[in-house]
């Protein structure tokens, strides 16, 4: 193995920010995903400051206007300004994603740890429940849950809870398998021999090493939550009063938007949703590369 001699003076360490950007330039999907997500966040935040959120609700604008200078994305059949709809809808989507993704990941991490670290009956029970629930199409069960609620009472928060209800199995199984391998590593054995308590080992030894996996699981959960809430909303199970992007597509489709020539109505929310889901999928792929050094590219 050849080692390159380091010239004195050339060895200064680049700053953290530089290193981060250098990593992003290697990990193209993470970079692209983050860029799109930041652009969407900027659109939403600037939008929330500029527009009146009430414009996203019916009867606030002239109806059925095609995109123009006054209404860049047009207005819909019910008199909603679609720019305002996009801003509020994005904000609500982000809320559902973060709340449901956060809860789902938290439950998954806790159950995964308990299952893998303590083993025995708890492990068998948690694993069996996960295995039995996994083949059931979660989205359809969520259809039943959302369908049995009073549609007038469904809020954005209820939506997040419905979405998270059956979505913790994925992170549980991922974290469980990672803890199982990590538990056998030498640094954990050393820690055990030196008399550190179970909680100490979990929080000080294992958890920090799992952070990339937890981050990847979190992004995956956010993706699933956004997707599930979108799916329910397109089926007409969302909080119908709110301008969720899926709701807009549902109402555009029920009013026959394409048949009537109002093409802009479903297009704006569709493109928005594609950008949200696409950026999350790209970030997820990028984090996979970060968490899984075997597929990591060299500099």
């Amino acid at each position: 193995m050849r080692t390159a001699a380091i010239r004195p003076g050339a060895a200064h360490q680049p700053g953290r920010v530089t290193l981060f950007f250098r990593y992003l330039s290697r990990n193209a999907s993470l970079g692209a995903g983050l860029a799109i997500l930041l652009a969407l966040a900027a659109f939403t935040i600037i939008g929330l400051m500029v527009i009146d959120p009430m414009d996203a609700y019916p009867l606030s604008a002239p109806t059925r206007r095609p995109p123009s200078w006054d209404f860049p994305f047009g207005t819909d059949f019910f008199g909603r300004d679609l720019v305002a709809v996009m801003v509020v809808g994005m904000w609500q989507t982000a809320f559902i994603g973060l709340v449901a993704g956060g809860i789902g990941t938290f439950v998954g991490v806790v159950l995964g740890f308990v299952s893998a670290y303590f083993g025995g009956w708890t492990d068998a029970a948690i694993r069996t429940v996960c295995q039995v629930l996994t083949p059931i199409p979660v989205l359809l069960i969520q259809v039943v849950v959302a369908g049995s609620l009073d549609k007038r009472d469904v809020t954005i928060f209820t939506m997040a809870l419905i979405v998270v209800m059956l979505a913790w199995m994925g992170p549980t199984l991922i974290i469980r398998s990672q803890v199982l391998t990590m538990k056998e590593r030498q640094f954990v054995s050393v820690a055990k021999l030196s008399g550190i308590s179970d909680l100490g080992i979990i929080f000080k030894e294992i958890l920090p090493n799992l952070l990339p996996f937890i981050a990847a699981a979190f992004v995956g959960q956010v993706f699933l939550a956004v997707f599930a809430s979108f799916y329910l909303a397109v089926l007409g199970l969302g909080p119908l009063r709110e301008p969720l992007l899926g709701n807009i597509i549902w109402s555009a489709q029920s009013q026959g938007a394409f048949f009537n020539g109002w093409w802009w109505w479903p297009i704006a929310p569709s493109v928005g949703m594609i950008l949200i889901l696409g950026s999350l999928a790209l970030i997820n792929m990028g984090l996979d590369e970060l968490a899984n050094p075997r597929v990591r590219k060299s500099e």
Partner: protein
Amino acid sequence: MAKVPPPSFSGSTRTSGEHSFMTLKLIARRIGFLFMVIWAASTIIFFVPRLSPVNPVRERFSEIARLSGFAPEDLEKIIESFSKQFGLDRPLWEQYIDYLWNIMRFDFGFSLNRYPSTVIELIAQSLPWTIGLLVVTTILSFVIGNLLGAIAAWPRAPRWARNFSTPFVLFMGVPPVLMGVLLLFFVGFRLKLLPLGGAYSIGVVPNWSWEFALDLLRHQILPALALILGSVGGWVLTMRGMGITIQGEDYVNFAEHKGLNGVTIFRDYYLRNALLPQMTGLALALGTVVTSAIIVEGLFALPGVGTVLINAIRANDFPVIYGIVIFITIAIAAIMTLMEFLYPLLDPRIKNE
């Protein structure tokens, strides 16, 4: 004539008596698991709506009352007699046992909205459409995706062919229903090449003629394309990974050193071996494929299960919603179990232990 023993299930060297015992035990375990999945799903679907404060019967009848305007006392009486007639006033556990027994007989009750029809009748009418769409799109996307993925990983393929699959991988994050909206806009609305929805043109009576078949086909292209474009990318990615692993295998090297031509190596040594694990993915993808197909059908107003579900949601027709969900869950779980039994026949390397 010598007695030839029948080929054993997984081609192992165990004696056949011991082997068939193992296989039987395995089949029993898998079927037991299948019933556990169905039981879990049915139980969730039974208890969740009963935890909710909404009474579906009241919901439905107050809607009818709003439209036709009868007195509130009468509404209470109607709800009471309806509940009695359908046994909704009995203890919960009795209802639960009845419910499980009915599910085993595929009896999901009556539709509230289209009353004399039962739920299973509605499903039976719409199912052929959904199965047709699903089978065609799944086979097409499986074939296209795996071929593109295998080429993408094949070092001898020309560069353009290897990069051909990249756009499909990018489409992977786009749910088929959004793909459907974009296709509707560009192909249906802007270019006016294909119809905007429905199973056949309005005013046409279904008949056995070529024009009708063509009309039917034209209406199916966009929904099928939406589903295919959304799922090809997944196959490309997994197949590419599989292909890269297989290239390093000794038997591929050996075939190359024997001087076999590239097409033979690609087809018989590389593709065949990489395809087998992909079959496993077929079962895993089933749930996603079905849920996407349902919503795409709704978007394109095809007369399949998806449209029945959306209409039921719109009309608060709860028995239909629950019936469709249970039916699909059972179907998916059953097909997955069936495929697990088929793998050892396809791939002798997999042994059911």
